[in-house]
């Protein structure tokens, strides 16, 4: 059986490059990104002047997932508009992600 999670990070787009770099360093084998807009505690983020959000999805093992979440929480959470959540997923070719 495989223990993989889909970890989704939604954050200010200015952080895209660094987050993408960091999740790879922490064990993710890849990621998928797309531009999104949204609303949350930091208010509405839906235009290029004030900045929009990036949605980064990565399929990772439980360990990497914990590691990445810990890192994000420490480095970004209390200073940037950002959320993260995860849930288990079934994949084909598990080894692709480990």
């Amino acid at each position, binding site marked *: 059986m495989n223990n993989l999670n889909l970890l989704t990070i939604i954050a*200010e787009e200015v952080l895209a490059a660094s987050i993408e770099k960091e999740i790879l360093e922490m064990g993710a084998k890849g990621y998928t990104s797309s531009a999104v807009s949204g609303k949350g505690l930091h208010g509405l983020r839906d*235009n*290029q*002047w*004030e*900045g*929009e959000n990036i949605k980064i999805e990565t399929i990772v093992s439980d360990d990497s997932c914990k590691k990445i979440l810990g890192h994000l929480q420490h*480095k970004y959470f209390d*200073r940037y508009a950002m959320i993260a959540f995860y849930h288990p997923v079934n994949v084909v070719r598990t080894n692709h992600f480990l």
Partner: protein
Amino acid sequence: MLTSILSPMVLAFLLGIIASRVKSDLKFPDSLYQSLTIYLLIAIGMKGGYKLSLATFSEVWQPSLVAIGLCCTIPLWTYWLMRRAGKFDVPNAAALAAHYGSVSAVTFSAALAFHDTLKIPYEGFMPSMLAMMEIPAILIGILLARINAPSPNGETQVPLKEIARELLAGKSSLLLIGFLIIGFLVGNTGWDQVAPLFDVPFKGVLTLFLLEAGLVAGRKLSDLRKGGAFLIGFGILFPILHAIIGIYLGRLAGLSIGGATILGILASSASYIAAPAACRVALPEANPSYYLTSALAITFPFNIMLGLPLYHEIAKLIFN
């Protein structure tokens, strides 16, 4: 004078504000905004570089010194005032210093259009001043924050050199400086090849951009409360002060009345492309709703609609 207030650019900006107040569904696609930004930066740089190639060093060096001087000192007193009078904490004061020390390419473009409309000549190399004034102030702002406050939770900060690199490689300075050089090198033949795209329709594109700018400024008007009376006063009075200083020094540096006014406008304008991005990364503790609101919803509209004619009148006084 009226022709300057009734210009398509100003009216388009007003329409944008109205549109957002009446909750219109009008929205510019993100990629249109990004494309217009790229166009404006290239067009400004290219033309500035071409004109620069026609200028002599002796005309340029004094205004350049003044420009550098302005964008290095403005952040200092801005920071000081924000801390004392504004009671802002270190990061927010530093962020505001960075924004008001830096410059706005669109306000600059509107100023050129304003002078063209009134047929007032100005030095063609002014865009090089714009390019020079963009980055230093942002670095100084960030530096001020680092000197005056240790990193929040004793965290490793982005080294200043890295920030400087990112700013120089940032799209706005890269396009401005890059095309300044290109415009400088290509000469008449090259300029004639691209003028039909980057010069002839420029004011029309600017009109389009100001419509979009109005849409956003209009929405942020609701955030003025957050900023409070002090920020409103600051966002209007400081630009006027900077404009006066800029015009005065511009005259000393031997600029024409047109050129001096434009230098004043550069001093008075606040950045909203390079500065916000840099501050978000380097000064995350600074609250964007302060610097964005004052730059976008107060200073920018004021400069576009009332500032330009006002500074022009002031320039007349200073030059006589």
